[in-house]
Structures are given as structure tokens and as C-alpha cells.
């Protein structure tokens, strides 16, 4: 379970995250939606401590992460899996070595077991026969998928995905969405997904929060989202013709 309490973040006196609180349960796919520039990336980075909040705090299963020092955080971070918006693969390492990286750092498996585990994760995201290539030699969508494989390598307890399926074709996007939901339920992970893709929201969202200009405007489930009376939310989701048709 991840709880955020009154998170505020300013950059040069401009408020980017304005007093956001939420509770995300384990075993659930929690989705943060909002327009480009609404603060989704800043919020997810604040949760994992890459950005320090100006006020407010984050609890991981009641452990106050914000109050911890680097070494205390380190332990909890080994339970994190994070997919960055740009992938953030290590470009000096091959695809296989990227996925092996967290295993080499933190697991006590034998070399053979680590490689097996890395291959298993790559296959999970539908990647085969590319493990010897470097990130610069594969497509953007493949990089995203390698990033997901790397994030799930250590069986994380908390999974953070910043737009995991942007830049993917509709078929692969659905595969990735399903994968995220599947492992979330199977391993009882607390998963947070940033997206502005309504397909993902309707497909895998258990709990959804909508942020707009740094404020939380709405939260609920996917069954409620089409019938809310929040104007900002409706402007966001019904900008797409398809969703308007679905509602009808």
C-alpha cells in the first residue's frame, strides 16, 4: 500500500504538485491520469524520492519514506521497480545486461539463474532474440519493453510506470497493459501507472486519480469515470470521439 499525504512541490515558486493525497492498495493497478504537463512525472518521482517534496510525506506500507535517510531508503528502494517515461536504459550495456543489472546488484542467485530470470522477463514483454543488442540498436517501443523487463526483474513490491505504453502500437500496448495487471495481481504488487491513454484506463484501471495543473480533481474507479460530473475530467476524457461514442 502506498499513501501520499498532502504532497506539495514547487519549482522556482511555481506550484507543480498542489497538496495531493491518495491511498493506493496492493494487488491493484492504480492509474494517474492528466494532460501533458499536469505533473504526473513529477508526482511519481516524488513518490520514489527522486524529487524531494516541499511538504507532505509518502508511506510505503506505513513506513514513512520521506523521513528516511539515504541508507534507510535504500532498503525500501530495492522493493521498487520503476519504468521511466524515456526508458532510461543504460546505453553502455546490452539489453540482457540491462535486465541483469538489478539482479547482479541485489540478488543472490547464481549466474545461470540470473540469466534465466532475465530471459524470462524479456519473454514476458514479448522480446525474443534481441538480448545481445544495445539500446541504440532497438526501436523506441522495444526500449520501453526492456525497461519494463528490467523493472520487474527483482519481483518488486511496488511498481511505478511512467507512461509504459506511450509510443507502442495498439496491439503491444494492450499486451503491456495486461502484463502489468497480471503481475500486479499475481504478486500482490502496488502498481502505479501514469498515462493519458484512455484505453489503458478502461482496460486495467482499478483505481484512478485525475490531476490537472498539479491538483487532484477526481478519484474513483473505471466504472465511475464516464459518469462523473467533474468538468475538468470530462474535458479530458471526452476529448476523444471514441470515448464519447462508448458513453452513448
Amino acid at each position: 500500500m502506498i499513501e501520499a499525504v498532502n504532497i506539495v512541490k514547487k519549482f522556482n515558486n511555481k506550484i507543480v504538485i498542489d497538496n495531493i493525497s491518495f491511498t493506493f492498495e496492493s494487488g491493484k493497478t492504480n492509474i494517474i491520469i492528466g494532460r501533458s504537463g499536469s505533473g504526473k512525472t513529477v508526482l511519481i518521482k516524488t513518490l520514489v524520492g527522486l524529487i524531494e517534496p516541499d511538504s507532505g510525506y509518502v508511506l510505503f506500507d506505513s513506513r514513512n519514506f520521506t523521513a528516511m535517510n539515504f541508507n534507510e531508503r535504500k532498503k525500501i528502494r530495492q522493493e521498487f521497480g520503476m519504468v521511466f517515461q524515456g526508458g532510461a536504459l543504460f546505453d553502455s550495456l546490452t539489453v540482457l545486461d540491462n535486465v541483469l543489472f538489478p539482479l547482479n546488484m541485489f540478488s543472490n542467485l547464481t549466474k545461470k539463474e540470473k540469466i534465466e530470470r532475465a530471459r524470462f522477463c524479456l519473454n514476458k514483454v514479448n522480446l525474443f532474440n534481441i538480448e545481445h543488442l544495445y539500446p541504440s540498436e532497438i526501436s523506441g517501443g522495444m526500449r520501453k519493453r526492456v525497461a519494463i523487463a528490467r523493472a520487474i526483474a527483482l519481483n518488486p513490491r511496488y511498481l511505478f510506470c511512467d507512461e509504459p505504453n506511450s509510443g507502442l502500437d495498439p496491439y503491444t500496448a494492450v499486451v503491456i497493459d495486461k502484463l502489468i495487471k497480471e503481475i500486479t495481481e499475481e504478486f500482490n504488487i502496488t502498481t502505479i501507472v501514469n498515462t493519458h491513454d484512455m484505453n489503458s484506463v478502461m482496460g486495467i484501471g482499478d483505481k484512478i486519480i485525475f490531476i490537472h495543473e498539479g491538483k487532484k480533481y477526481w478519484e474513483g474507479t473505471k466504472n465511475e469515470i464516464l459518469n462523473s460530473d467533474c468538468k475538468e475530467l470530462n474535458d479530458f476524457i471526452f476529448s476523444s470521439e471514441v470515448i464519447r461514442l462508448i458513453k452513448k
Partner: protein
Amino acid sequence: MIKILYQIGEYLLLLKRIFSRPERGKIYLKQTIEEIGKIGINSIGIVTIISIFMGAVIAIQYTYNIENPLIPLYLVGLATRDSMILEFSSTMVGLVLAGKVGSNIASELGTMRVTEQIDALESMGINSASYLILPKIIAAIFFFPLLTILSMFVGIWGGWLAVVVTKILPAELYIQGLHYAFVPFYVTYTLIKSFVFGFLVVTVSAYYGYYCYGGALEVGQASTKAVVYSSLMILLFNVILTQLLLTR
């Protein structure tokens, strides 16, 4: 002024983070060996070439500058030897490596920063400063002195080569000069300098790369700053160390 103090403080804090306890020894060893290749082995060629030419020029210039018949010509050998040992092998090599190694480190770390690879390391609970920079420091403080020793020998040999090729002076006289009034402490002094220069080049350049925010443009600027400031630091510490070590 305040900005300079701020930067010095930030630099010192970075050093503190680099030297806080590293996690997995084996992985550091592997990284260090890789860095020795990148920082050390790859620089042998350029150091050799520069030192040959430097030694040659020093020998030729001294020969032409000795016009007084009372000054024995074998002093050319002595002067070339001492110039190479005292100053050129460490300072020139330091400056050349500030250009080559410094820009390389700053752009590597800067790219990792702007493509979120450093964030990825941090989110996994890895002390990115220590993981990325410590192996470079070890490689440099180990290899800069070796390159300096190489430079001394090759430079003195370059002087001999110039004397032989141009026939401005009998080669035996040059050799005789090389043996005359040798002060072993000069070698220690220069090795201490090269050790310090290695540390400065890596840490100053790493500082500009590690704290580089933005995009490709900023990475370029960081790499320029790395070269300029590590060169300045070399010149400054050259004076300081000379004053400390050579004056009695």
C-alpha cells in the same frame, strides 16, 4: 562569488557521497578495470606522442640557448631531464588528459543524467555517485602516475632522438648530462603531483557531468566547463604543491 562558494560546497558534498561505503565490491572491481581501460590504456598513445615532441623541443631549445662557451653542453641532457621530470611529464600530461578524459567523463555522466539513467540507478537504491565516479577516481589516481612515468622516459628519449637526428650536439654529451646531478626526490614530487591531478581531473569533470540538467546542449556545456575548470585546478594545484614540496 556566492555561486562559486555554492559550487565548491556542492562539489564537496558530491565527494562525500562518492566515498560513502560502496555496496558490492565485485561490481566495483569490474567497473574499475573497465575505467582503467578507458582512462588509462586509451591515453598511452597521446601521452607518448606528446612527450616525444616535448622532449625533442626542450633539447633543441636548450642547445641553441647555450651560447656562452663557458657553459658545458652536456647541461642540455640535464636540463631536458629535469624539465621533463619536474614539470612537463606531470603538468602537461595532466592538461592533455584534462582535455581528453575530462570531456569524456563530463559528457558520459551528463548524458546519463539527462536521459534519466542516473535517476534509474537511484530509484533502484544504488548510490549513483559512488557507483559511477569512484571507479573512475581509482583508475585515474592509479594510472596518471604511470602515464607520468611513461612520459618522463619517452620525453627524455625524445630529446636524445632530436639530438641524434639534428646532430646539434654529440649524443654522448646528452647522455652524460642525463647522469649528472640527479635528484631522486624530483620523481617523488612529480608523482605526487600526478596523483593529485588525476584526482582533480576526474572529480571536477564528474561534478560538471553529474549535476548537468537539461538536454544535449547542456551536456556540451558541461563538457566544456569540465575541461576549463579541471585545467585551472591543475595549474592552481601545481603552484600550491610546488610551494609545499620543493621549497625548503
